[in-house]
C-alpha cells in the first residue's frame, strides 16, 4: 500500500442511522490512485448504503468522507458527480427511451459550455460542441463494443450490454473514481467474462481507482487488489483476497459459526 499518497477516496467513521437503526457505522476506507477495491458482505450489510452516502443520495449522520482530500459531506448528488465520483446502479438505471448514444451524451452535459441562448440560436460553437461530444461518446461506446447500437433505444439492448452502457455513461462524467454496484448481477458466465475484460481495460485505459460491490466471489477474488468486508454496517475485515479468503470472521459471517454447524450435525446424528 502506498501510504504516503493522498487517498482518492477516504471515509472517516462514516455512518448513517435510519431512526434507531444504524445501517452503516464507523466505516473507514481508503482508496489510493489506481487501486481496484472490492466491497463485499452478506445481503443487507449496507454496501449499497455506503454508495448512496458517498454519492450524496443519503446524508451521513456521522463521520465524513473525502475526495482527494476535499471534504464532501452535504453536497447534493449532482455536485458530487461534478467533483468526480461516478457510479452505476445495482438495478440498472438507464434512460430507456433514449438512444444508446444519447445515454452517454447526457453524462457529458456537466462539462459542456453552450449557453441556453447559444443552443437556441444554433451558434457555430453549439454545433462544434455537439460534434465533439458525439465523437467522444462514440469513442466510449467503441471501448465497450457498443458502437453498433448507438442509435438503438437503450431498453432494446441485451442485459449484459445494458450493464456495460451504464459503465460507459458513468465514465463520460469525467470522474476521479468509479463506483460499480454489483456489475455482474444477473449476468451469465460469458457476460461476466466480458465484464471482467472491460474492467481490466478500464484500468489500463483510464488508470482510475474503482470501488466494486460484488457477490460473484470468483470475480472479486480474481481482480481486486484489496477487499473490505462489511457485516451489519461495520467493516469486519480488510486485506488482500488471500487474507480475506482465510479470515475466520469472514467465513463466520458468510457461513455461520463452526461449532453451530457441528452442533447441527450432532443433533442430526442423534
Amino acid at each position, binding site marked *: 500500500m502506498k501510504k504516503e499518497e493522498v487517498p482518492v477516496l477516504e471515509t472517516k467513521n462514516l455512518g448513517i442511522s435510519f431512526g434507531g437503526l444504524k445501517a452503516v457505522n464507523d466505516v473507514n476506507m481508503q482508496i489510493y490512485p489506481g487501486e481496484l477495491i472490492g466491497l463485499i458482505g452478506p445481503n443487507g450489510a449496507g454496501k449499497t448504503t455506503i454508495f448512496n452516502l458517498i454519492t450524496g*443520495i443519503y446524508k451521513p449522520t456521522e463521520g465524513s468522507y473525502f475526495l482527494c482530500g476535499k471534504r464532501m459531506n452535504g453536497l*447534493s448528488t449532482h455536485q458530487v458527480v461534478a467533483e468526480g465520483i461516478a457510479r452505476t446502479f445495482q438495478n440498472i438505471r438507464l434512460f430507456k427511451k433514449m438512444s444508446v448514444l444519447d445515454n452517454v*451524451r447526457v453524462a457529458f452535459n456537466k462539462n459542456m459550455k453552450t449557453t*441556453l441562448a447559444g443552443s437556441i440560436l*444554433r451558434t457555430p460553437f453549439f454545433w462544434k460542441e455537439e460534434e465533439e461530444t458525439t465523437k467522444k461518446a462514440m469513442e466510449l461506446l467503441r471501448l465497450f463494443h457498443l458502437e453498433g447500437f448507438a442509435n438503438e433505444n437503450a431498453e432494446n439492448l441485451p442485459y449484459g450490454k445494458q450493464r456495460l452502457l451504464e459503465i460507459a455513461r458513468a465514465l463520460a462524467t469525467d470522474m476521479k473514481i468509479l463506483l460499480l454496484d454489483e456489475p455482474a448481477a444477473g449476468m451469465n458466465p460469458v457476460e461476466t467474462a466480458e465484464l471482467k475484460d472491460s474492467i481490466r481495460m478500464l484500468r489500463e485505459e483510464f488508470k482510475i481507482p474503482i470501488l466494486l460491490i460484488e457477490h460473484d466471489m470468483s470475480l472479486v477474488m480474481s481482480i481486486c487488489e484489496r477487499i473490505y468486508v462489511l457485516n451489519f454496517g461495520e467493516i469486519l475485515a480488510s486485506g488482500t483476497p488471500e487474507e480475506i479468503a482465510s479470515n475466520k470472521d469472514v467465513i463466520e459471517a458468510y457461513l455461520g459459526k463452526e461449532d453451530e454447524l457441528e452442533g447441527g450435525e450432532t443433533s442430526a446424528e442423534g
Partner: protein
Amino acid sequence: MPAKMKKNYLICIIGVVIGYLLLSLVFDTGILGTRSAYFNGLAVIGMFYTIVVCSLNLLTGYMGEFSLGHAGFMSIGAYASAIVTTLIGQKVELSGIVIYLIAILVGGIAAGIIGFLVGIPALRLSGDYLCIVTVAVAEIVRVVLSNVGIPAITGAATFGKSFSGIAKVSDYHYVYITMVVCIFIMYCYIRSRYGRALIAIREDRIAAESSGINVTRTKVLTFTISAFFAGVGGAVYAHYITTLVPTYFNFSKSSEFLAIVILGGSGSMTGSIVASPILAALPQMISYVVPAFASYRMLIYAVILVIVMIFKPSGLFGTREFSLPKLLERISGSRKKADAR
C-alpha cells in the same frame, strides 16, 4: 453547422414560407368571400392554441410532469400584455406591429416570471402533487383576476369583470410568424444539451442526478420556458379577442390543453402542431354549420380522447416527429429506385 443540417434547415424554411403563402392566398385574395373574416379568426385561434399546447407539451411530454394550470399562465400573459398595451396606447400612437411585439414580449415575460416563482417551490414535488399545485396556481390567478379591478388600472370602460378595448393587433401574418418562431425555439431547446438532460430526468431522475445533471435547475428552467410561451399565447389571444373575461381561463381550458397534448402524442411537437388547430378550430367550424353542436363540444372531446386512449395510448404521433427533409429524402429515394428499374 454540418452541411446536412444546413440543407435540412433550408428545406424547413422553404416549407414555412410555403405555408405562409398558402395562408395569404386563402385570406388576402378573398377566395372565401364573406366568410373570410370568420375563417381568418379560426386560423388565429388555431395558431395561439398551437403555441400554448406546444409549451405544455414541453412539460408533459419531455419533462414528464403534468400541468393542469396552463390556462393560468396564459391568462397572466393575456392580462399583463393587455394592461401594458392599453396604457401605452393611451399615451402614444404606435403601429400595429410594434404594439404586437410589445404585447407578446410582455405577456411572455410576465408569465415566465410567475412560472419561475411558482416553479422554485413547486418543482420539489412531482407527479400528482405538482399537478395539484398547478391547478391551485391557475385558480388563484383566476380568482385574483376576477376580483381585482384590472380594467380600472387602465381607466378603460368596464362592463362587469370583463376587460375590453384591447387593441386588435393579432393579425394572422404576425401570429403565424410568432408561432413558427416559438416552435423553433422550443425545438432547439429540446434538441440541445438542455433537452437531453430534460428527457433524462423524465426517464430516471436518480440516474440523471448521478450523471451530473442539476435536476432542480433543469426543471425550473423548463417550467419557466413553458410558462413564457403560454404567456405569449395568452398575449396573442388577448390582442385578437380584444375582450378578456377571467372565466375563459378556467380549469376546463387547462384540461382542454392537456387533452390536446395527449391526443397529439405527449413527447411529439408534431403531434401538438397537428392536433391543436384541428381540435381548436374544428368544433367551432362544425358549430358554425350546425349550431346545436356547440353544447356537445366537450362531450365529443371526451369521446375522442377515450377512443384514442384505447387504440393508441401514446397519442396520434407517439413520440415521433415529422420531418420535411426526411420525407423529401424518402420520396426522392423511392423515385431513384423506380428510375433504376
